[in-house]
């Protein structure tokens, strides 16, 4: 008698309540001990497929047809107690965002015990299992730790617990839904390693859902690429990556920022070296949140037409530095020299000219546009701030700005809610450009965007730089910065640990942290 394949999905269809197809005709199978990666951008239906493997559809969606066989039994055909025996028992899930995935008013120990109790474990055996599970994810296994509430633990710790809980019942199938996306760069790497280790040592079939192709490279045996609810390509990892058969897959692969040590930006920088005229000079910048100093004396400068990358993990002080520069954080000391003159920290005491000469674009496109203003209103308002009053002139300026960020004219009367994330970010850039700035501070402007969109925004920035705009590019993404910045500053805990020309820093990093960051950056090959 042959053992049933742990996971077989046959022709799965999912629809939303309006009858729109979310997932269409998805068929998969995962062998024992195999890792299948489902790759797709937001809206591709990959998470819906992942959750359906636990017999679950998010509200507003339903599984309309198809079979999901777990060890030979269709999880869609059972319900109630039987179904619950599957969930958490035979199929388990590692969620995307660990901090919102634990019940906030129950200690983590209790939540683990609850899971085990629901699947038939009791007494001391249960306790032992819990200890063992925590040890396997490199966490302390004492009573004190069990009594911790989710908010007392870091995202990384919580994700370790979530992973431990996914493995603790020895399920046949483990579904991991973007398990590293919500984590800090450096944590991402260790969690990824942990997953790889656990997967190797267990016999479970793993479905790993992600948008990050680089991650796939580390864990997956096979790959399925999803677009608009359908699988466009499926095959062995190496084969797909080396010779993608589908255009979309190819596009995805191309869009991934690569850590370019021989970057074009650096090359151009050599040409422009003739006029290294400093736009911004930051000297010994210290900034604090309340009484806690988070930036401890940072100095750097940005030249005309230069792009400086400010790189660091979360809590490194990179965003605070950017906010100090733009005047949004005035609890600071040190000096800011802008276009040759000293500039105060508070927005309210800066001159109009200074304010317009320096613009900031933020990370979250959802929050950086006023939802009550149309694209035209939002940009026109800014244009008028520069002194332009004539209706026709303002209109013309708005249109030319939209052209400049390569947005079609039809978006003029749309509202932010009608735009995609990438489009919103372009509007934000256009609005910043309306002030005719000399320096653009970009605070993680691509991190909330899909890979393909991200690439287009980067391209836009490169264009702008070509026009002589100075940029302070704040990011945690080292490969991205390597594509765009001439020089790069690595921040850690509020201190500059390394700074220099991009090429040099990336080629021969001096600091341990830089090396770690470089190591953590996923590569495709």
């Amino acid at each position, binding site marked *: 008698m042959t053992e049933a394949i742990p996971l077989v999905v046959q022709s799965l269809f999912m629809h939303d309540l309006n009858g729109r197809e979310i997932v269409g005709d998805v068929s998969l199978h995962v062998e024992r001990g195999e890792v299948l990666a489902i790759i797709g951008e937001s809206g591709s239906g990959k998470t819906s497929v992942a959750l359906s493997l636990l017999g679950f559809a998010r509200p507003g969606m339903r599984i309309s047809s198809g079979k999901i066989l777990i060890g030979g039994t269709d999880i869609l055909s059972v319900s109630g107690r039987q179904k619950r025996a599957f969930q958490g028992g035979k199929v388990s899930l590692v969620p995307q965002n660990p901090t919102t995935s634990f019940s906030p008013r129950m200690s983590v120990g209790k939540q683990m015990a609850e899971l085990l109790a629901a699947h038939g474990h009791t007494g001391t055996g249960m306790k032992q299992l819990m200890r063992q599970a925590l040890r396997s994810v490199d966490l302390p296994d004492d009573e004190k730790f069990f009594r911790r509430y989710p908010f007392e633990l870091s995202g990384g710790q919580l994700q370790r617990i979530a992973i431990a809980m996914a493995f603790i019942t020895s399920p046949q199938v483990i579904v991991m839904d973007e398990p590293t996306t919500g984590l800090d760069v450096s944590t991402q790497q260790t969690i990824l390693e942990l997953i790889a280790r656990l997967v190797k040592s267990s016999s479970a079939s793993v479905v790993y859902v992600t948008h990050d192709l680089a991650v796939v490279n580390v864990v997956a045996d096979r790959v399925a690429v999803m677009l608009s609810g359908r699988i466009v390509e499926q095959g062995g990892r190496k084969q797909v990556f080396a010779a993608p058969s589908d255009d979309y897959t190819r596009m995805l692969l191309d869009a991934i920022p690569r850590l370019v040590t021989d970057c074009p930006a650096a090359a151009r920088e050599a040409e422009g070296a003739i006029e290294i005229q400093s736009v911004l000079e930051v000297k010994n910048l210290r900034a604090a949140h309340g009484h806690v100093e988070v930036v401890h004396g940072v100095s750097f400068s940005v030249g005309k037409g230069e792009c400086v990358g400010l790189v660091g993990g979360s809590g490194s002080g990179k965003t605070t530095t950017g906010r100090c520069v733009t*005047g949004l954080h005035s609890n600071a000391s040190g000096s800011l020299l802008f276009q040759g003159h000293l500039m105060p920290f508070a*927005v309210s005491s800066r001159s*109009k000219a200074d304010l317009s000469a320096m613009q900031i674009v933020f990370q979250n496109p959802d929050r950086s546009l006023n*939802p*009550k203003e149309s694209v035209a209103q939002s940009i026109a*308002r800014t244009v008028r701030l520069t002194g332009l009053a004539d209706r026709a002139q303002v209109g013309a300026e708005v249109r030319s700005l939209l052209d400049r960020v390569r947005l079609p004219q039809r978006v003029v009367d749309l509202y932010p*809610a009608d735009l995609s994330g990438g489009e919103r970010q372009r509007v934000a850039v256009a609005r910043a450009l309306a002030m005719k700035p000399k320096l653009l501070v970009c605070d993680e402007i691509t991190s909330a965007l899909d890979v393909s969109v991200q690439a287009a925004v980067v391209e836009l920035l490169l264009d702008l730089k070509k026009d002589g705009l100075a940029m302070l590019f704040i990011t945690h993404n080292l490969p991205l910065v390597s594509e765009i910045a001439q020089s790069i500053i690595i921040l850690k805990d509020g201190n500059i640990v390394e700074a220099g020309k991009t090429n040099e820093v990336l080629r021969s990093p001096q600091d341990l942290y830089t090396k770690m960051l470089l190591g953590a950056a996923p590569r495709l090959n």
Partner: protein
Amino acid sequence: MSTSVLRLTLAKPAARIALVLVLVIVALASLGPYFSPYAFDEVVGAPFAPITYEHWLGTDFLGRDTFSRFLYGGRTVLVVALCATVAAYIVAVPLGIYSGLRRGPLDVLLIAISDVIYALPPAIFLLVLLASTGPSLPTVIVGIVILHSPRIFRIVRLITMDISKNEYVEAAFARGESWTAICFLDILPNVLTPVLADFGVRLCGSIILYASLSYLGLGLPPPAADWGLMISENRIGITISPWIAIAPALAIAAFSVAVNVLADSFARSVGRSKEI
């Protein structure tokens, strides 16, 4: 966006029925007097006469035509409730935006004042206020405004604080826009939507407060026709002619329910379903 919110608000049949009800009752209250068969204070028969073809709702405790009084009686309650509620927003929204945006000593003071008003149970407050100044419609309106304002103020303040953390507001500050521009273009429109979601609840509260005051004899003096007063002055006949009380009670309830349903639907379409 406003059209889409409106569309969303009226997406459900319940909301559309509610809108119709609101319109009907507003029309009834504002146009009713022009169609009323008798004057509101005209004695047309014996007290508590039954329903007849001439008197669709019979007569009241003084022998006046109840239907005519019903047609007249909606004006005051709707106007008072609407004035009071709108005035409360006019007072509280600017204060809330100021407090939420600029903070400072005025904010502390306003919070303290609102704390004190919060601590006064609404009915008790109105009772003591009206008892000390004498019942009059302007006092009633001022009283209701005083009761609503701190509640609106707090929500507006919170939402303003929330909105001002948004990056588009920061960006506006960073590019040197004026306070007024930021208040009117960035804060106000975004505050209004969620704040107006509670408008229905507050209007409903005003109606109930005013009706209760009329019931306690602190509203319009007789012989005015007023729904709340109609219920209380004809209470004695509740077993003889229950419809005299039922008609205005139904009108008050229907209006309140409809306004609530609309507000609920509006709140949902705005994506905000609970009070902050």
